[in-house]
């Protein structure tokens, strides 16, 4: 494999990862008020996911509640048990499962590629439909999260999404029209930052 592709992958991934990592820091900031810095850090940097961990914590901890050692210990047990299935599957069954996938790839490459496309298509269909429909249904009636108290405005969700699409299309046009090959690596990070700036101003308008 060409070394330049590897170098480019390292650069792309490093640049891409910066902005989406910031909400994880914010998540630690929220969780550390209840569970302390160490536990929040471990849970959100290793094994846990931002969107699941705060919900898992809230099964035991509620805002305003007096936090005791017992509360933290109970929250930790619930959070730990909830996260185990993925890694346990990988440790025990993934090798066999991956062999099956590889066999399928060898026997019928087109079918396997179609299945991969179907999974990706399903992933995007699921995320986009939930996001867009929730955005449309909450126009004028923002949803306030019980745990963080943050309001999610449907209008801002839609503005952010379409701003992201527009900026990406703009980047694509620049690459085509001016031959800016270098922009390929930066297009998605630029898009994310641009869309979040749009979100920032849109939130200020709706608050």
């Amino acid at each position, binding site marked *: 494999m060409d070394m330049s592709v*590897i170098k480019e992958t*390292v650069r792309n*991934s*490093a640049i891409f*990862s910066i*902005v989406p*990592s*910031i909400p994880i*820091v*914010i998540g630690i900031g*929220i969780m550390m008020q209840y569970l302390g810095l160490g536990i929040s850090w471990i849970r*959100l*940097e290793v*094994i*846990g*996911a931002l969107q699941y961990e705060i919900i898992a914590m809230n099964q035991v901890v509620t805002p305003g509640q007096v936090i005791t*050692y*017992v509360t*933290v*210990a*109970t929250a*930790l047990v619930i959070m*730990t048990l909830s*996260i*185990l299935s*993925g*890694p*346990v*599957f*990988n440790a025990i069954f993934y090798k066999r*499962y*991956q062999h099956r*996938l590889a066999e399928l790839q060898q026997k019928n490459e087109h079918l396997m590629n*179609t299945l*991969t*496309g*179907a*999974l990706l*298509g*399903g*992933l995007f269909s*699921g*995320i*986009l*439909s939930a*996001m867009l*429909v*929730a955005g449309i249904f909450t126009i004028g009636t923002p949803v306030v*999260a019980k745990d963080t108290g*943050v*309001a*999610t405005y449907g209008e801002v969700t839609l503005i952010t999404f379409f701003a*992201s699409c527009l900026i*990406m299309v703009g980047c694509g046009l620049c690459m085509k029209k001016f031959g800016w090959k270098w922009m390929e690596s930066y297009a998605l990070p630029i898009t994310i930052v641009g*869309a*979040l700036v749009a*979100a*920032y101003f849109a*939130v200020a308008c709706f*608050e």
Partner: protein
Amino acid sequence: MENKRDQYNEEMHRLGRLFTWIALGLILMVPVCYCLTAGVMPLWSKLPECLMFILGYLAIGLVEALSYAPLLGTGGQYLTFITGNISNLKLPCALNSQAIAKVEDGSEEKEIVTTISIAVCSIVTTLVIVLGLIPLAIFQEKIVNALLPISPYVVPAIFGGLTCVLASRYLKIAAVPFVLCILICVIGNFAGMGAVFNQGTMILVGMAVSGVTTTLLYRKGKL
């Protein structure tokens, strides 16, 4: 070539399993160590109350492990399930790298690009967290208050652009499931069950719907 790839896969499985067991052991030790040092026991009576929640999360984890496997490759699968934050960070990062490198599905290049991408993403996230924690420890309230209002919009910001990148490649496969998912969500919201049809649920629904519609299209020879 095949032999080399088999060797690589075997090595990845060996290391992946080893480090997954180590990670699981360490993660399980966190509550044990906490209880020992704090001298307390968890409130076991809370467990039955949270049972449905735990079972739900276990099911999501299992489905994620099954369904993300063809997208993440051998090395990527082990790495992402240890380092977490899959759908909001590692998977989009890997997909972006795959699109830029223009790798083919099922190729060795895709496996390498995906694994490197996820590894770099994990390292950068660690650095961002370390760097972010210093100001966070000093100005916790100010920083959280400033950034919290835009945190719900990170996913639309990522997936808007990423959709444009991948739309042309997967439009034929994704068009029908997308329309069906929109319909399911709209019906769910009209039925007052909008909270149930959240992103976590809809990813699973989307993959199931997409699996069915793609199989039908494949059998009819339209793909």
